[in-house]
């Protein structure tokens, strides 16, 4: 992480009731950030500050205790060994389970999604227990899913655009619902031929397979996560709810061009040809 503001554990959220303070906890960027997912935190922090919110950011390294009073915990993607290390550390500390219990939001990408589920299989066939915060199980799938993705969110957000790169297929159980329906690409890849679903939502736990980073390409999605975090902050501090509701729109230069370009690309025939070449 390049952000220099390392809040001490237990002060991520602060106690400033009702003053628009939001505590973001970036979990293990050195382990779980292989595909630029650290950018999600940069985007969240920037969009929150642009709305005058006071962002307290905690960056947690392996072996360090995570703050207990965060409002939004963020976990990125990573390679097998990193993923297993992160899962074991989070299970041992129990910090995410406690955070979810008291209403904090969690956002995870790719291997992070798998870690939040009931269990996941790594290459070699070993099945590792997850955190059980999402009703989801992940098994290896062939071929590896690599390429551009377009998906229609179930909650009315604009089309999601991103890039997937994963060897796991995730099946959702009844307690979780999908974040979006796949328009192009693979997504969760659950079931024998893929179930056409992308990501997962369970309470305030939100996860996706999309990199890009996904929040840089989908600013409205980032704002929705911030709104969940503000809701959690309000409940945590017992404030009157002044910080809740919808965030004001924010113009983000170059994002419209980027989204149009990626959407056109994903809808074109290029996608299937490229996927055929890169998947193996």
């Amino acid at each position, binding site marked *: 992480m390049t952000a220099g503001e390392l809040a001490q554990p237990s002060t991520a959220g602060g106690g400033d009731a009702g003053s628009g303070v939001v505590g973001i906890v970036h979990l293990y960027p050195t382990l779980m950030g292989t595909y*630029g997912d650290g950018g999600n935190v*940069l985007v969240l922090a920037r969009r929150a500050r642009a709305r005058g919110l006071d962002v307290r950011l905690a960056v947690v390294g392996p072996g360090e205790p995570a703050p207990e009073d965060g409002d939004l915990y963020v976990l990125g993607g990573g390679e097998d060994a990193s993923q297993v290390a992160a899962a074991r550390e989070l299970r041992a500390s129990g910090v995410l389970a406690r955070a979810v219990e008291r209403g904090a939001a969690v956002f995870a990408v790719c291997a992070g999604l798998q870690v939040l589920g009931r269990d996941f299989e790594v290459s070699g066939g070993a099945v590792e227990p997850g955190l059980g915060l999402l009703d989801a199980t992940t098994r290896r799938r062939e071929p590896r899913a690599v390429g551009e993705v377009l998906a229609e969110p179930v909650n009315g957000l604009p089309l999601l655009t991103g890039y997937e790169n994963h060897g796991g297929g995730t099946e959702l159980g009844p307690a979780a619902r999908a974040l979006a329906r796949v328009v192009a690409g693979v997504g969760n890849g659950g079931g024998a031929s893929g179930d056409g679903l992308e990501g997962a939502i369970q309470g305030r736990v939100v996860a996706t397979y999309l990199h890009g980073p996904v929040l840089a390409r989908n600013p409205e999605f980032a704002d929705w996560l911030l709104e969940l975090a503000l809701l959690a902050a309000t409940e945590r501090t017992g404030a009157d709810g002044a910080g809740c509701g919808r965030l004001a729109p924010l113009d983000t230069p170059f994002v419209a061009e980027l989204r149009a370009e990626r959407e056109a690309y994903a809808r074109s025939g290029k996608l299937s040809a490229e996927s055929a070449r890169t998947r193996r």
Partner: protein
Amino acid sequence: MPVRAGVTIPTLLSPERRSVEFRARAAALGPVRESGGAEAPHHGPWSGVFRFCEVIGAVDSPRSAARGRTSSALAAGARPWQARGVPDQTLPLRSRTAIAAGRAVAAASRALGRGRGQVIGGRVMLRVDPQLLARLAAGMEVTAVSATNGKSTTTRMIAEALATRAPVAHNRTGANMAPGVATALAESRAAPFAAIEVDEAHLPAVAAATHASQLVLMNLTRDQLDRGSEVKMLADRWRRMAETLTPATEVVANADDPMVVWAAAAAPRVTWVGCGQWWTLDSALCPRCGAPLARPASGWACPACGFARPETLWFISHDADRIVTPAGPVTPRLVLPGRFNVGNAAIALAAVNARGISLDAALEAFSQVSDVDGRYVRASAHGREARLLLGKNPASWTEMMGVVSDSAALLVTVLNARGADGRDPSWIWDVGFEEWAGRPVWVAGERRFDLAVRLDTAGLDVVGVSADPLAALELAAPDQALDVVANYTAFQELRARLVSK
């Protein structure tokens, strides 16, 4: 074919000097100790150092035996490569046909303006004679160089230094898989030395096919992740290769990169060089046991299993202004910018020194290198001067930030995401562009909008966006110098357009 008649080639090293050198090195490694100890040339004490002494100690015997063999062969032959040199006529007909066919296809490719022809020509050669690499390399001392970043520059330094002694086969245009290597070896059949850069994923196959007697291993970081080449997978592949090596092959390896050490430590004969690691995000975990690595000031160590940075007799000084060698510190006089190029020079120096090139001769040769296949070249277009820099992944972009940070030039950044670049450019979010907040930047390339969003988020002032990077030169103030940092295919295209060949 060029003839070597009249070329006098002195012995590499006398048996006495070799033996003295070896004793000095063995003494420096010291007996197995409970800690690195005050005698350690580079480090403070931390757990794990002595484990490496054990590893190295265990292979001392076969290593000295191998050196003995090499030394006596050198002493007896004086020109070992001439004794083993294979004139073209002794190549099987199939190989000669392969080379002729490959050359014809390469020439046709060049005539059609399709490129430089090395790859397609080499492909034809290997199709006609699949054993060609081994046959061509049979008379050569092959040094194979691999890394995610710096392999072209380091190979170039090694080739320049070896060339002060004898002709060198060198894939200088960066065609670094088997076909490109075949072309380079075929073009310099008479050369006693070969200095070849090899793609990380192709190193095991090419090193085996060419019977490389020296492998230079520098760094492994994230690059082209969409191809499934995760860093640890590559390190494991290198390690399996190292396990098959005999002491006849010297591995020269960067002690500062844990992934490289994990691979190289499996080889029976290793010269460790501390040539730096500034990008650590891909070696956060111990490659041996998976625990988070500690980063003490002196290097890296695993608190869980003791796997740690080996001690080095070759390393770059803290300020990267000097290279410490077993014979004392020397000052590199590089034209090439950046501390990472001092690291490249350090490992090149250790490699060519083992081939018998003196430190002075090698450093002099390194100082002649001013550009590497277009990297660092100052080119002109529209009356403005642009310096071309290659930033192809987070580690090399981070290195380039150091090179341009003091420059008053307008920064132009160019991003593509074709197959050779990796189709997922999200790695730009791993680069700490926030350091440049407030700086004006021009953004170009096929994925300019990804880059513009990234740089805007980092707080840079995006002053222009264009598909074609040359638009920046056209529109800049007449006396404005530019630093152009481009990723792989964007760089190749710019070089082809701006640099006369």
